[in-house]
């Protein structure tokens, strides 16, 4: 753990390469989840008629994370797809969190603050009740 927090370790690893790897794994993981849910969804509902002509408003099965997780544990295809989508949205957010850590190791206080502001804006859009 001490090695993980030392500046030398991170310089050797090259933070930028780690950032790239993080983004790549995020994308790969979410496409696998989307594909898995997609197969289940098509097998169960493939013969039905798609309905997207009129906007139906928020769907309480997949407009929030707890509902999505309930559906995932029941093996519902569309909730699994939506989990993949949430992972995709979470990937750039994870990148910001990682940057806070990287700037901390570099002792770059100005950019710790800047990164935390960006994170704050995203948290506000998540929890600020803007969905209504």
């Amino acid at each position, binding site marked *: 753990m001490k090695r993980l927090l030392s500046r030398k370790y991170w310089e050797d690893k090259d933070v930028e390469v780690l950032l790239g790897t993080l983004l790549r794994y995020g994308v790969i993981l979410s*496409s696998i989840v989307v594909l898995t849910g997609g197969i289940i969804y098509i097998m169960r509902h493939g013969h039905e008629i798609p309905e*997207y002509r009129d906007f139906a408003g928020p769907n309480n099965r997949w407009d929030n994370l707890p509902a999505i997780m309930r559906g995932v544990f029941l093996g519902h295809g*569309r909730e699994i797809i939506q989990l993949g989508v949430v992972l995709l949205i979470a990937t750039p*957010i994870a990148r910001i969190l990682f940057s806070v850590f990287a700037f901390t190791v570099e002792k770059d206080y100005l950019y710790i603050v800047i990164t935390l502001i*960006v994170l704050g804006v995203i948290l506000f859009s998540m929890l600020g009740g*803007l969905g209504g």
Partner: protein
Amino acid sequence: MTILTFTLILLGGAFLAGLLGSLTGLGGGVVIIPLLTLVFHTDIRYAIGTALIAAIATSSGSASAYVKEGITNIRLGMFLEIATTTGAVAGAVLAVYMPTSVVAVIFGLVLIISAFLSIRPKGNHLETADKSQLAQQLRLNGQYPTPEGMVNYKVRHVLGGYLMMTLAGVLSGLLGIGSGALKVLAMDNMMKVPFKVSTTTSNFMIGVTAAASAVVYLQRGYIDPGLCLPVVLGVLAGALGGTKILAKANTRTLRVVFGVVITLLALQMIYNGVTGKL
């Protein structure tokens, strides 16, 4: 048409969108919205939500390659993300109060401007004089690798660029697009960042900007799993194919053809918006 055929056709369309989007630098999202609304008669709110997810997918997918090459200016990107994320949240809130026909017209106009910007020949700036004190204080100046070795560059007009980025963020949140063209315009023309750096840094920022409004869209039901399934997988596969071709092909002709197609789609969107069909 059943869900199975609908999904397969959309998968093919999204693949083409991702391929052309990455070849021309316009991103996959801009084609998804006309494809869904004009061809599949989907409500524009579903189209916007789906396109935004496509933008995140392509941004993260290609950013991973660019970051490795060391061209992306991470500090510049992070600083400007304050502008784009605040803009994106404002845009997503604005979208609730704006009639869909007005959104369609604005989308068409932005699409035409983006197409024009992508065809326009690019001057490669290299500003070496230290003219902006703010850029110095924020440590935005950087260096990037060229065939002749590492080159240092300086950033100008930080405030103007910041304001332009806020606008790019608002449009991103309102229309569900990455606004890559506007982001490049801000960094390229205003801040005088070298073209290669501005393109990759813009791409790096698109994911974070889009994530800020995507969480609002998700709560509002704009993001539908049935549409995201073919679009996410198709656009990602297309973008991957695009990067492979990009290394070999001359994209000049393709850019012009794609620009014309996009402009026609944009005019159709504006027409449908004005006549109240969207």
